[in-house]
């Protein structure tokens, strides 16, 4: 197959369209189902002013006693008022409760076109929610790096330290953010109204730390012996050895760790917000699930995914810069 110039653009678009169509087909839609006989409805409509014409227009749209939600919008208000009592709302489709693409878009539009809006605690523009999440992630991530890098260096430099703590790290590493959060809540129970924030930071820091710790340790162990010999021949002090040789030589590995840590921190924030009910991308998702607005769940998932992708790309750029040097 010839490589088309815009493959990088067109193929992803095609992929997205395929998935969107599949989602749309699987999704349900809202219809109004007639509870009385068609004839009774006809009599009711005809009784209205210009009722005969209205009924002529309406009757063909009634398919097996169901009226699609979008058609209702086009009806004259007084007509709908007169007949709405004879209908009941229903969802039909392959998965009736899954909102389809159009419903999701319609319902999410206010959050996108006014992304900085603040209409209430849990009703804010999507960028504002994302910003809350990002601020919390940044704090937790900073804690993760501040703790993770020195721990990684200790692991890489000292085999005693490795033997002591590596098994423990391997046990703690696979624990899900959802499991850490309750512990965080208990730890900061007496911290007052900000307890939820501290618990979220605790979770993010603890989960996001491991890739940084492990990659730093690997990086330190991978520093070529030759570089260390250069330092030994020059009799560099321990501090200079660290700052002039070990840290620069480990940086590319550290940045790989930083990138993976950021990904995990972003995973953890969603879980933390869901459980603590904080406003944010994840908190919004959970709130809208409880409010039965399923469209917003999908919208939140997409937002979280896109933000995660952007964060990862940004970190890759930084990482590539450091990789290019050594």
């Amino acid at each position, binding site marked *: 197959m010839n490589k088309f110039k815009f493959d990088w653009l067109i193929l992803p678009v095609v992929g997205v369209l395929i998935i969107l169509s599949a989602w749309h087909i699987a999704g349900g839609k809202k219809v109004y189902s007639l509870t009385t006989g068609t004839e009774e409805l006809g009599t009711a409509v005809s009784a209205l002013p210009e009722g005969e014409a209205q009924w002529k227009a309406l009757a063909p749209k009634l398919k097996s006693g169901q009226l699609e939600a979008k058609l209702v919008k086009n009806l004259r208000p007084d007509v709908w008022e007169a007949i709405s009592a004879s209908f009941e709302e229903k969802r039909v489709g392959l998965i009736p409760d899954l909102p389809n693409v159009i419903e999701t878009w319609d319902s999410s539009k206010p959050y996108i076109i006014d992304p900085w809006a603040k209409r209430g605690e849990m009703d804010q523009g999507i960028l504002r929610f994302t910003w809350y999440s990002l601020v919390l992630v940044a704090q937790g991530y900073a804690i993760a790096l501040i703790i993770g890098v020195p721990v990684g260096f200790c692991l890489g430099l000292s085999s005693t330290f490795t033997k002591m703590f590596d098994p423990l790290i391997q046990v703690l590493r696979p624990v899900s953010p959802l499991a850490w959060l309750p512990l965080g809540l208990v730890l900061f129970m007496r911290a007052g109204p900000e307890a939820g924030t501290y618990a979220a930071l605790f979770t993010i820091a603890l989960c996001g730390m491991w890739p940084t710790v492990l990659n730093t340790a690997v990086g330190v162990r991978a520093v*070529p012996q*030759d*570089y260390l*010999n*250069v330092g*030994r*021949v*020059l*009799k*560099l002090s321990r501090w*200079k050895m660290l700052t*002039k*040789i070990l840290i*620069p*030589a480990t*940086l590319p590995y550290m940045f790989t760790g930083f990138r993976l840590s950021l990904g995990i921190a972003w995973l953890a924030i969603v879980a933390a917000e869901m459980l603590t009910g904080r406003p944010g991308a994840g908190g919004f998702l959970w709130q809208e699930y409880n409010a039965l607005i399923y469209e917003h769940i999908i919208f939140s998932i997409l937002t979280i995914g896109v933000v995660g992708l952007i964060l990862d790309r940004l970190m890759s750029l930084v990482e590539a810069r450091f990789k290019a*040097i*050594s």
Partner: protein
Amino acid sequence: MAFLELKNVSKSFDGHSVLSNVNLSIAEGEFVAIVGYSGQGKTTLISMIAGLTKPTSGEVSLEGKIVEGPGPDRGLVFQNYSLLPWLTVYENISLAVDQVFPQWNADQRRAHVDKYITMVKLSHAKDRLPKQLSGGMRQRVSVARTLAINPRILLLDEPLGALDALTRATLQDEIANIWQTERKTVILITNSVDEALLLADRIIPLTIGPGATLGEAVPVKLERPRDRTSLNHDPEFKRLRALVTNQLIGFNAARKTSVTKKLVRPEIMPEDLDQPRVNRPPRRLGEEKSETLTVA
């Protein structure tokens, strides 16, 4: 008293003897080349002199003081350059200079670094990173870095081993020139007899391991500066080259190499197809034999 002295130095790794009973004494200002086959402990020997590894037994002393660890009095030029890739040429050298001459002010140090960059003809490339340099240029930076710390003795560990023949020749001449002007004590580790003859006052062959040691030294009394083209026709040069080469070949011949081959004899067994698969014996009962061959 010798300037640098190795007394009964032996080194073994996990019980495998690499070097045994190495005795060497070098006078100040002397250029000594140690020639030997690859993998026979040349780098181990120079690492011990540099203090990067400790001898299993025996001792290394420089100016009467026993070598306990690495230090800037013994400048080591590494086989693979060992430049720090995140520092420019200038920064690589200044890292060493700043460390060794802390008493100097910034201007003195800068002038010192520049002097050595000029000496190895890299002034145009002083702000480049090592990856932007060719192999020969990198090795020149490495030489400049080592010379700039003004070591008492210069240890060159196969410094030109990874370079192409032309670059190698140019750098050999540069090393010869630098030695002429600086008159440092130099130990050059090499596997090239020609290179040793071109540069050294004395050539010491390294025998073949396990337990390699230094062979009989060959003094090189050729006029300096030595010119590689006229040297090729010099009868003394030819004699020395034959002498050293034969000595090295002799080491190899003295060692009998044996190779143990593992042979697996295939044996095909009939299969009883009535047996369920798990209970069937393996279809091929391999029998392992080994055979030892002596290579001439």
